[in-house]
């Protein structure tokens, strides 16, 4: 069902007989200190994290635990104060602003709690947005946005403005947008946080489907029902990873 599945190797099987899959995210002793002049706030105090291709990782933890900081670092919205971060084989610990923008464009697909769609343009144009920044030609952009919106079940809503869509539909547009550049990782921040139970369920099902299609997913969430569906749950507390457990879940 997912077009992407054909281009990508089968998701890694976990367990004793697992074939070692290539690492997508590798963090070594990553620290992040916010220096506000007088007060120095250490948000991350040495995080080590390794995510392989095709994993569905949930990051959980109370607010103020540093998980938002971790998400910003994983998504290359920010750089670490120290430590090493390798994304898809490239060291991105110390790069310029423009290089960060390019990495976000090509390697990370964002899904936000508040959708963050541009309200003035159609669903299709929202999906095309990363393709515009990636320099994809118009014709290709059109085809790609149509294909993706059909995939998330919004083929008939292409020309609707976000304000004409329900919350669940908006989040599906956002997911289509996140997939536009075929990123190494889809990074979602509380994707069901602003949705009612049924719409949230739809989105969770969609993530499940993406996982089955071979996408690497990192979801930051408070929602236990979403975390429960992940293949691996990492708990962050006080700037450190305090637990890292694999669940029984499998993409299939």
């Amino acid at each position, binding site marked *: 069902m997912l077009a992407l599945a054909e281009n990508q190797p089968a998701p890694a099987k976990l367990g004793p007989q697992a074939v070692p899959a290539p690492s997508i995210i590798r963090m070594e002793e990553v620290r992040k200190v916010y220096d506000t002049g007088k007060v120095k706030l250490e948000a991350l105090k040495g995080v080590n994290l390794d995510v392989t291709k095709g994993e569905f990782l949930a990051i959980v933890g109370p607010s103020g635990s540093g998980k938002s900081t971790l998400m910003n670092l994983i*998504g290359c*919205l920010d750089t670490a104060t120290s430590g090493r971060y390798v994304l898809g084989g490239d060291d991105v610990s110390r790069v310029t602003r423009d290089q960060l*923008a390019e990495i*976000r*464009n090509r390697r990370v697909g964002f899904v936000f709690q508040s959708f963050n769609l541009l309200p*003035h343009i159609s669903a299709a144009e929202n999906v095309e947005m*990363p393709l515009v*920044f*990636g320099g994809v030609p118009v014709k290709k952009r059109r085809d790609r946005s149509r294909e993706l919106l059909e995939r998330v079940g919004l083929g008939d809503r292409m020309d609707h403005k976000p304000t004409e869509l329900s919350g669940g539909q908006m989040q599906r547009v956002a997911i289509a947008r996140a997939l536009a550049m075929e990123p190494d990782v889809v990074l979602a921040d509380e994707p069901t946080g602003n949705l009612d139970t049924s719409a949230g369920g739809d989105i969770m099902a969609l993530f499940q489907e993406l996982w089955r299609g071979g996408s690497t997913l990192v979801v930051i969430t408070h929602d236990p029902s979403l975390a429960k569906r992940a293949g691996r749950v990492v708990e962050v507390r006080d700037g450190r990873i305090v637990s890292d457990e694999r669940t029984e879940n499998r993409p299939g």
Partner: protein
Amino acid sequence: MDTFKDVLRQLLRDVRSQKLRTFLTVFGIVWGTVAVTLLLAFGTGLKKQLIKKTAGLGDRIVIAWPGLTSMPWEGLGKGRRIRLNEDDIEALRKETPNLKAISSEYQTSMKLNYGTKTIAIDVSGVSPEFCDMRNLIPAEGGRFLNPLDMDRQRRVLFLGNEMAKSVFGTENAVGKTVLLGGSPFLIIGTLEPKEQDSSYSGRDNEKGFIPGTTFRALTGRKWLNNIVFQSQTALLNEQVSDSILKGLAHRRKFSPEDKEALSLWDTNEQFAFFEVFMLAFTGFLGIMGCLTLVVGGIGVSNIMNVVVEERTKEIGVKMALGAKARYVLSGILLETLCVTAIGGLIGFAVSLGICAVFPQFGLTEFVGEPKVSPAVAAITIGILGVIGLIAGWFPAREAASLDPVVAMKL
């Protein structure tokens, strides 16, 4: 291309949602553009008019009047009256290098009779060279005095256009005979109307011109009133004036240093003065206009700051999706330039409209015809471009330096 389409769309959206704000912003630029172009256009028109009016007196001529000596010379006392006649003119014509044309001028007031009308008229006895030197251009159907008129002392009259109007009304004056000081004169031509703001013996359009030979025979006068001469080029005026002064000093025995024995008026100095004066004046007007435009630019910059603030979240999202600083910067900059360009275009249209309508107010004789010359247009476009760039640069830089994490949370 995408950026540009994006910018246009943003602009249209802003125009739709913030009508008053956009109007005020554009108005600031329109106002400034109108100020710059109109001030410069009026400056250009005024300069042309001044030059034209000055040329009404003559084409860069020098006028010389004999006067009283103010220094003793070769045993002769001061306060002696210097008098000149046709022999002096002939000598100067032969001896002065780089002289293009020279003519004596005799003046008197006469009575002119036509039918029942009697009018007092200032009459000058001159030679045919006067035509070109003093820009006495005959209206169609007439001519100026010619050498034959001079040789034969013909009683022919060239009449100023205003004088012709007061004597003949709408009738054609050429070919009519009038009495001038009791003698019949044939009118051979009238003056083509011209602008003239300086003169030394009344404006040409109220005067009559007859051959110098006729004048002398009729009045019995021997001594001329003044000399008018022209050099090969205006740059030689000073040198030629000097030669003439020396020549006459030698012939009439006065000191060549004596400024009062022969007063000289080089009208080219007036042209040169106007050049400098108008350059300064136009510069002044231009600066005033520019300041108005700068104020408009500050308005645009403020509005763009507000726009950036309003769009902070949107910019943050775009950055998260991979928009580089360059994209954000050029977007805002382009939008500012668009606003400036639109304001500038409207301003140009308004200015051109005003310039087109202005001649109907009948003030052109005093201030000339305002004209948006290519130079004025180029200067205005240049200033608009610079102002647009500066006005856009600061808000654009602020937008480009936003932190996407912070911007998205707003």
